């Protein structure tokens, strides 16, 4: 546990360069500008680091010579600063790529199996990202959770999407309560029939089932992370598991 907490401004309260890390053809940097004054007793992380370096003295202080973070940003962004202040975004005109061939060593690696036995768990549970549900470490804000459909959460209940044909085989209808079991755990869920989902697959939104904060976020739906386990990708060492075998039974 931390001995010291140094609360940062939120993005609406601070200057920050936001480089786009992937997905664009040329190098692109955005600039976040403060639009409100800090609402709480917080300090910009950059400011904190500059202060700490100054207090420590020596070569560390010399490496952080700026009076404040805004000066640091202006000087390090140099000629990009004026464009960023004017347009909010800077894009490199010319971009050279490392090569023109595409190599993916992972494609040659052995296929990773999904956890669980098909005999005991006939379905495949896939977590999905919803544009209306924040699945990172910060949960949905009240307005955002309000936009989530009543076929994703209803009261405290979370839903799984299932093909009507698969649902009929198990004897489940729209809105039915069901017990979802995976090799990692079990949860009570409701069923939403979705023609667009592949038969034999069930899908559940990521980012729900929070226990923290307040009634606007907590106790809504199921935390899918409790139902799936990590499987290591042998070529990258990353977590390759994005699904798990599952069983759905009438509750």
């Amino acid at each position, binding site marked *: 546990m931390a001995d010291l907490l140094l609360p940062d401004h939120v993005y609406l309260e601070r200057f920050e360069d936001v480089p786009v890390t992937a997905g664009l053809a040329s190098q692109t940097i955005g600039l976040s500008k403060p639009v409100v004054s800090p609402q709480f007793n917080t300090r910009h992380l950059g400011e904190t680091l500059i202060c700490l370096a100054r207090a420590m003295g020596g070569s560390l202080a010399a490496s952080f010579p700026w009076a404040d973070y805004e000066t640091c940003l202006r000087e390090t962004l140099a000629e990009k600063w004026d464009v960023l202040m004017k347009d909010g975004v800077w894009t490199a005109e010319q971009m050279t790529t490392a090569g023109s061939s595409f190599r993916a060593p992972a494609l040659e690696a052995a296929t990773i199996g999904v956890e669980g036995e098909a005999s005991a768990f006939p379905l495949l549970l896939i977590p999905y990202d919803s544009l209306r549900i924040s699945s990172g470490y910060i949960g949905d804000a009240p*307005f955002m*959770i*309000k*936009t989530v459909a009543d076929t994703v959460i209803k009261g405290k209940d979370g839903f799984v999407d299932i093909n009507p044909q698969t649902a009929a085989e198990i004897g489940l209808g729209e809105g039915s309560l069901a017990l979802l079991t995976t090799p990692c755990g079990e949860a009570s869920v409701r069923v939403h029939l979705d*023609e667009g*989902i592949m038969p034999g697959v069930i899908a559940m939104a990521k980012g729900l089932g929070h226990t923290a904060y307040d*009634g*606007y976020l907590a106790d809504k739906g199921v935390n899918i992370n409790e139902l799936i386990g990590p499987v290591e990708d042998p070529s990258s060492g990353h977590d390759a598991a994005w699904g798990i075998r599952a069983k759905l039974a009438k509750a």
Partner: protein
Amino acid sequence: MKHEQQHNPPMKYGMAIDLDKCTGCGACMVACMSENNVPFKTDESNKLDSITWIRVYKLTNGKSFPDTDICYLPRPCQHCEGHGGHSPCVSVCPATATDYSHETGIVSQIYTRCFGCRYCMAACPYHARYFNWWDPVWPDGMEKYLSPNVSPRMRGVVEKCSFCFHRYQQAKNKAYLNGERRVPEAAYQTACTQACPAGAIVFGDLNNPEHKVHQIVQPDPHNGNRSKNPRAFRLLERLGTNTKVYYLSSREWVRRAGDNYLAHETTGHVSKPHH
């Protein structure tokens, strides 16, 4: 500064929403609620009492996997003109709490006049109106976000999308001070339009040929304001509600979902008003 006493031609503010661009992200809903001081409760999953001036519906073509196609449809108030300003909701309001403006084409809602009979909600074919079953409650600190330009509503009244009318009022004042006769297109835009990351919503004066919305929609005044754009349609167009929110899609099943068609009927037919 001298202003000539001269009437401007009436405006008809409206929208063109491109359903082939909408990703269903819900940013329009969030921007709208934030802009218009729409409250929130801990549980908003009962959509009958969940107030969303613009609501994004999910449509499907009804075909099984793998031929399923989906479409998201944002639904603000359609600001019906009907025939000569006879919007379904305006016609039934016993309190004159909702009115059709012939100056802007906007259907208003005057909260302090509304006594909550909800005839307008029953009359609206688009479920665009919402009732305040409770007084709004904002958690500590959240009241700081409230817009001072929009009055919060009290328990017992109906509310709905106003096309961000307070923004029109501000833009009109600014135009007057700048000596401009008309509100410039960019000076009055709704919160949902500006928030849409896909650029799916275009807002402006349907009467003004210089406005983008007019150019997209090309409304035909001789044919019940039906769009001349073959991609465009309106919701339940054959009711004669003469709405000012036009939808665009290149997909026939989406255009067909906009009205109740019989199997042998083709899309795009508009009946003459019954009056």
